[in-house]
């Protein structure tokens, strides 16, 4: 007997077109790269950017109408407003990683074909992940992303720090995947389906439900897995080491694109599948958020390594992101997504600046390497200052409005205590961001020569544009917010 719902509908492939295009392009680049000499690696670079651009165009042009979603392959794959927004920003951030990382990776002899291919495969995984309509798609997308990421972190295989970071990332990441999978299996056991929407419909969490314990355990494992992937405290242990150990371009990738994907995964799993248990997971996420804010901000103060400081700052930003979920309505998710987008753009500038200052054989990752930058190059000091003030949440920069929206969501939800926690730690956070500004503007430089800028003009222009975007989006952030609202069908 053939189940009518399991028939293959060829038109589903159109829904999947951006992903199929990216897959095809990646495979083509894989082959082309084989025939390129190391000196011709820029061809791979350009082709990769074109592939990302092409995928972005396809995502944009084929996007379903506002407020509607298209499901393909019997609901395994969803193409809705949130997926469109997240995919576009994932592609954008991956493109930034490639642009920023070109000179940096070349100077370290890491501009190899694998760098681009792994980036593209990871991007594909993220696109699947944010479009996932079933537990299987979630897991497949996640594994494609994380396996590529492990390899990327280990790319600098001669560096013991990099290798250590990669091993840590791999072991802890694999454990997190395992926990997630375990949770999924419990939920499957309780509901008998892998489809997220069906789980949402079927899962019975009433007090006399026979599956109550199973579902509760499944939910806890899901939250733990998500916490690991996002880097929320107390599951954050891998994050500082990986951020510090990975080549900076890869750190940027893990800190930006993957965070967008992790946001998408969180939404799909918690709201998409376990929406019926919202009161329970909002409480868990509230605790994770408060812990992340506290640990991230307090530990960041003690860091002298900028990458490590930004790692702890990421943990605190993940806390803010989770606060958006605590609201538990479309407005809250929109605020959380808005926050994630703002964070990845700011991270782009911060890590981009680290790569800008780095030279062959020299990593500019200590905070002291930024000493007196204002005297050596006022323009890029200004760009970095924009990023730092924005991360700290000072108006009129973008980061402030993202914080504003999340705080509003939290206060709307009546969780005043979480808002107060967020604010207290925002003030703690202010200190270490200001310290970077202080070092750049008020300290004397270690050497007074003007900054030797990399010759890569595209890198410098894009980085400057990225920094100015923080200011521009701080003044005109309304369209982006509306877009996020529409993605979740939220009423403003």
């Amino acid at each position: 007997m053939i189940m009518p719902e399991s028939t293959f509908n060829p038109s589903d492939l159109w829904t999947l077109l951006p992903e199929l295009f990216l897959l095809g392009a990646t495979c083509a680049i894989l082959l082309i790269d084989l025939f390129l000499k190391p000196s011709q690696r820029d061809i791979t670079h350009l082709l990769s950017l074109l592939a990302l651009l092409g995928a972005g165009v396809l995502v944009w042009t084929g996007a379903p109408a506002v407020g509607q979603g298209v499901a393909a392959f019997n609901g395994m794959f969803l193409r809705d407003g949130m997926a469109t927004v997240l995919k576009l920003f994932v592609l954008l951030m991956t493109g930034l990683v490639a642009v920023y990382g070109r000179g940096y990776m070349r100077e370290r002899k890491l501009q190899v074909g694998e760098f681009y291919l792994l980036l593209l495969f990871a991007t594909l995984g993220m696109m699947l992940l944010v479009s996932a309509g079933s537990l299987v798609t979630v897991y497949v997308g996640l594994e494609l992303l994380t396996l590529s990421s492990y390899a990327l972190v280990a790319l600098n295989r001669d560096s013991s720090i990099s290798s250590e970071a990669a091993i840590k990332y791999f072991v802890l990441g694999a454990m997190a995947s395992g926990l997630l999978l375990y949770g999924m299996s419990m939920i499957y056991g309780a509901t008998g389906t892998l489809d997220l929407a069906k789980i949402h419909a079927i899962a019975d969490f009433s007090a006399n439900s026979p599956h109550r314990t199973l579902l509760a355990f499944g939910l806890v494992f899901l939250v733990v897995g998500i916490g690991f992937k996002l880097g929320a405290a107390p599951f954050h242990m891998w994050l500082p080491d990986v951020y510090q150990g990975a080549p900076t371009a890869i750190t940027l990738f893990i800190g930006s694109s993957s965070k967008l994907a992790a946001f998408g995964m969180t939404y799909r799993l918690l709201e998409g599948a376990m929406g019926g248990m919202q009161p329970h997971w909002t409480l868990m996420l509230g605790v994770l958020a408060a812990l992340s804010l506290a640990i991230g901000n307090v530990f960041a103060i003690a860091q002298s390594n900028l990458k490590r400081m930004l790692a702890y700052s990421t943990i605190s930003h993940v806390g803010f992101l989770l606060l958006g979920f605590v609201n538990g309505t479309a407005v809250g998710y929109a605020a959380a997504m808005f926050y994630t987008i703002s964070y990845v753009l700011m991270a782009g500038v911060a890590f981009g600046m680290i790569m800008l200052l780095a030279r062959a054989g020299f990593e500019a990752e200590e905070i002291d390497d930024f000493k007196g930058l204002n005297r050596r190059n006022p323009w890029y000091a200004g760009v970095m200052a924009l990023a730092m003030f924005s991360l700290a949440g000072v108006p009129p920069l973008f980061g402030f409005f993202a914080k504003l929206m999340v705080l509003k969501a939290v206060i709307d939800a009546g969780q005043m205590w979480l808002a107060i926690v967020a604010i207290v730690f925002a003030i703690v956070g202010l200190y270490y961001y200001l310290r970077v500004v202080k070092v750049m503007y008020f300290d004397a430089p270690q050497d007074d020569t003007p900054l030797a800028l990399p010759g890569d003009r595209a890198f410098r222009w894009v980085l400057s544009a990225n920094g100015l975007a923080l200011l521009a989006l701080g003044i005109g952030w309304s369209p982006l917010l509306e877009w996020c609202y529409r993605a979740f069908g939220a009423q403003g």
Partner: protein
Amino acid sequence: MHLLSLLIWLPILGAVAVLAFGRQANTARWLSLAVALATFALSIPLWTGYVPAGPAMQFVEQLAWIPALKANYALGVDGIAIALIVLTTFTSVLVVIGSWGPIDNRVSQYMASMLALEGLLVGVFAATDALLFYVFFEGMLIPMFIIIGIWGGPRRVYATLKFFIYTFLGSIFMLVGLIYLHMKTGEFSLAAFAHAPLSTREQAWLFFAFLAGFAIKVPMWPVHTWLPDAHVEAPTGGSVILAAIMLKVGGYGFIRFSLPITPDASQEYAWLVIALSLIAVIYIGYVALVQEDMKKLIAYSSVAHMGFVTLGIFIALALVRVDGNPDGARLGIQGAMVQMISHGFVSGALFSCIGVMYDRLHTRMIKDYGGVANSMPWFAAFAVLFAMANCGLPGTSGFVGEFMVILSAFQTSPLVALLAAFTLIISAAYTLWLVKRVIFGEVGNDKVAKMKDLDAREWIVLGAFALGVLAVGIYPKPLTDLMEPAVLQIVQQLGLAKA
């Protein structure tokens, strides 16, 4: 005509232009002066074009900013805001002129920060949308942070971090209050906030959220400790802007936010603010007395004088609510406003005077001076005038505001008035003692003997401040007339209970 937008964005765009074209120090200076003068010239029509007929906001501009939140780019001014905006543009011109010589390092960045600060300050006074207000309110910390941190004294980094974190701390609690009000009303306009129905409890929370923001800005005792540090380390221009205008934002905030939005809570806790103000007036006055650093002395004197502003604002509440005496309340708020403007002139002038001396001897210690009048007679004349204004001598601006506040305080509580009147003695004591030790007497040392009198640039700055001090002191009527409708409206609003 978008006059207010012009006043906000002209200096900010000017700052960008100075950064872009000001590679030569003199280009940066002249360009900044041109921008500051143009902004000042444009702010005059604000005063002359203001129609004092009604209390409504004038020069209104409104643009949808974030439709999803119903937050607007909404500007509008009444007499109070106009007075403060003109004070801002006026002082900014003098700051640019005053920094002409003393700032010789990274001139374009300094001038650009000053111009950006000017634009943001005008924005604070012109915004009628709470979110927009907050953006300007916080945004102005960034240029001031840079100004103190780069061009400040030896402990500048400590002072500027303290300044930034302290003020950020207060205002972020205010932000929570604003978000809460947004939740209640669905929009961010101040007018809607003023009409929001709030229970007594809600008002109390909001009142303290606003108090946290504005008390630190004013600053009131006991959250004033950032101010002496910031003042001592800031370059002269930074001190002038800080004392003359930035502190006024706190007082302005009380009038725009606390009084109309939380009138009942303001009444309930008026005793607290009045008590803190009196402590500021008396205790901080004594603290000023023992200072050895001139800038620190003036900084503490600023705290004491700003105590009169908060006193006047909150004594008005007691007068309206308890005594049913709107005339007295009018006097109190009017006095607070005159005191703000007057203190803008006087403190700006005093910090400029210290700057003049500091440029010559590179010390701010009182003991390093003595008998300056012998080598700098013109300077001494100005300095004594401003010192007299600081102690509230009749005929100077300092007298008018303090007298009005004391007079209104007397109508509700002679005891409060008596305590407040102590300031006349204390401020006379520390100011005159300062004058005696620095300006008069025998020439203290050889260096003082060699000090050159004012140059043309310093003449312009001090002369302009002196004109302001005397104008407000001798004939304050144009100023009070300008603010009258707005003050009357506030007094009328105070009479209406909310809860």
